[in-house]
């Protein structure tokens, strides 16, 4: 397994110019002949925030509370992260099959195809993040030391997304309906990942179940460290109907990190093992 990962890393590094060219191609094609131009990059996060606001507004009305600026900031932070995950997986899943003319004709490490999809999506997300930095102060967010957690969380998000991309692109090559399964899972995944809500709203047991989603630790970690200024080293609880309910537990971070790194190792090894069969089975 280690040999496979080493071989994969060396080959991808040798083909870094190809990775760059393919990423550039994906970005150019996204913005060439596109009416929305760079608006495209913030379109999806904006939609996520808007739909989140509608849901939170309804929830606030029913419970007799009001929507505060921090709620918007929470959804915006997690929305950008979720948009990255969904966008990257959407493009990456189809990346091998969509480039079948290359896969069957020319040899190069095939990892670069899903990797370039993730990289192109990272470009969009970078625009989203810059927008976020501009907007957040207006939503009452101030600088905290805890924001130092953000780079680590972003790395984990990229790693986890890349692992899923490698796995799904490969699976879609062998089984064409994987693409549709991914579409459906991503469509409803937003309800299984705490984007519009916080795990604590589900009660203690519900919160722990929600934390089993590897994205929970990453996205919740982002909003807590950015909006709440919470140091992720320490647990955080809140009172829901007089019951102390977990908001954050440090093991979430460890769990997400294990999923991201372990997923990366497993997916790379699997991809390497199956790669020689690609041209034959595509």
């Amino acid at each position, binding site marked *: 397994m280690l040999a496979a990962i080493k071989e994969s890393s060396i080959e991808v590094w040798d083909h870094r110019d190809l990775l760059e060219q*393919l990423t550039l191609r994906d970005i150019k094609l996204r913005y060439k002949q596109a009416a929305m131009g760079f608006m495209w990059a913030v379109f999806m996060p904006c939609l996520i925030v808007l739909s989140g606001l509608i849901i939170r507004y309804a929830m606030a009305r029913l419970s007799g509370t009001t929507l505060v600026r921090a709620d918007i900031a929470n959804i915006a932070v997690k929305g950008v992260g979720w948009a990255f995950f969904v966008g990257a997986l959407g493009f990456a899943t189809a990346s091998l099959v969509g480039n079948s003319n290359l896969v069957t004709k020319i040899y190069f490490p095939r990892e670069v195809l899903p990797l370039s999809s993730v990289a192109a999506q990272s470009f969009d997300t970078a625009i989203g993040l810059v927008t976020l930095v501009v907007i957040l102060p207006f939503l009452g967010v101030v600088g905290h030391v805890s924001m130092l957690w953000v780079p680590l969380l972003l790395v984990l998000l990229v790693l986890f997304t890349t692992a899923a991309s490698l796995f799904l692109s490969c699976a879609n090559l062998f089984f064409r309906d994987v693409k549709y399964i991914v579409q459906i899972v991503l469509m409803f995944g937003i309800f299984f990942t705490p984007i519009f809500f916080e795990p604590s709203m589900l009660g203690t047991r519900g919160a722990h179940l929600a934390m089993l989603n590897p994205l929970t630790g990453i996205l919740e970690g982002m909003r807590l460290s950015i909006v709440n200024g919470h140091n992720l080293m320490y647990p955080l609880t809140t009172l829901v109907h007089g019951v102390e309910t977990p908001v954050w537990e440090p093991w979430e971070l460890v769990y997400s990190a294990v999923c991201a790194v372990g997923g990366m190792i497993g997916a790379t090894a699997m991809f390497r093992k199956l790669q020689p069969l690609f041209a034959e089975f595509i």
Partner: protein
Amino acid sequence: MTDIAVEIDSLWKKFRRGERQDSLRDLIPAAVRRTLSGPRPSGELREDDFWALRDVSFAVERGTALGVIGHNGAGKSTLLKILTRLLQPTSGSYVTRGRIGALIEVTAGFHQDLTGRENVFLNGAILGMRKADIAKRFDAIVEFSGIGEFIDTPVKRYSSGMNARLGFSIAAHLEPEILIVDEVLSVGDYTFQGKCIRWMQNVLKNGTTVIFVSHNMDAVLALCNSAILLNHGRVAAQGELATVVAEYYKTGGHWAPKVMDNPTVTTISFSSNLGHDVVVPPGEQLTFAHTFTAAETIDLTPGFFIRRGDRMVTDTSYARMLGHPLRLRAGETTTLRWSLSMNLPAGIYEVGCHIEDIKGGYHDYSNKACVVTVGDDPRVKGDSYVGLKLEEGCID
């Protein structure tokens, strides 16, 4: 010590015929069914499997060119795909010593919405070139392709010839140590093809090892040092160029009329006075004897032809020569003699016979053909051999 650049040892490749289960929806029920019906012996050739390559072995010395020839479906592309790491052999091994560059479907990496310039960088990277190298060779690539001012136009506006020319030009600037070429010299117009051939000759001169797949025997003869003939995945012939190409012609590979279902006339033998496969100097006088027998009384017009690859050099028949058909009685055997001078340029020629009845039905077509290799006359060049001489006392 000889320096071997490519070495292939007993390569086998199995493919599966028919559709493969390629969706989970089909796979899951099938997997359940398989589990219930018990395991299947593995490793054997199932009924829907077939061998695309069977026990193929060869070696290519550094700096030489090997022609890989064979009819459609003979396994040539499978062989190249294994050498370029696209496919894995079922068994056997191969070694390639040196950086491999492949000229196979040179426009595969193009994206239609990107400009020629962008595609040069993209396709170059796909072929394994570094960005800096592409930038350095960019002008040369554009120059070679003849795309000129259209380089900043999206390639979707290019003609198919322009597309192919640009694709070839990028690949041509790879500078690999081992070059694998699959039938790409036929891109572009006449001028560009000439450019490609000259480029190939140059590449060979610079010591690159070349594996060349083509149906164009003239190109194979002009560029290669040795050849290998594949037939249904097996090596049918290998080694000396002329012998292998001759073998290729003998196994068919071009148009042939449909022979009737119940022929009543059959060829017994067809050969020249020098034998079946002969090597002659240009201008040599040859006689071909064609012996055939008829099962019933019939009016025939036996024919004679010379082909070079897909080109018919000459073709005639008894009736066309003499103005009347040849009557054979039931059970009669006869021998026809054709004589000619091989006034042909150097090359490999297939000499064959056919037997038609006067209603136009083919009883036989060249299934016992001869192959005549005409050698070079170093004194003359050109497309035709006319036996040019200087008369004695030609100087007045």
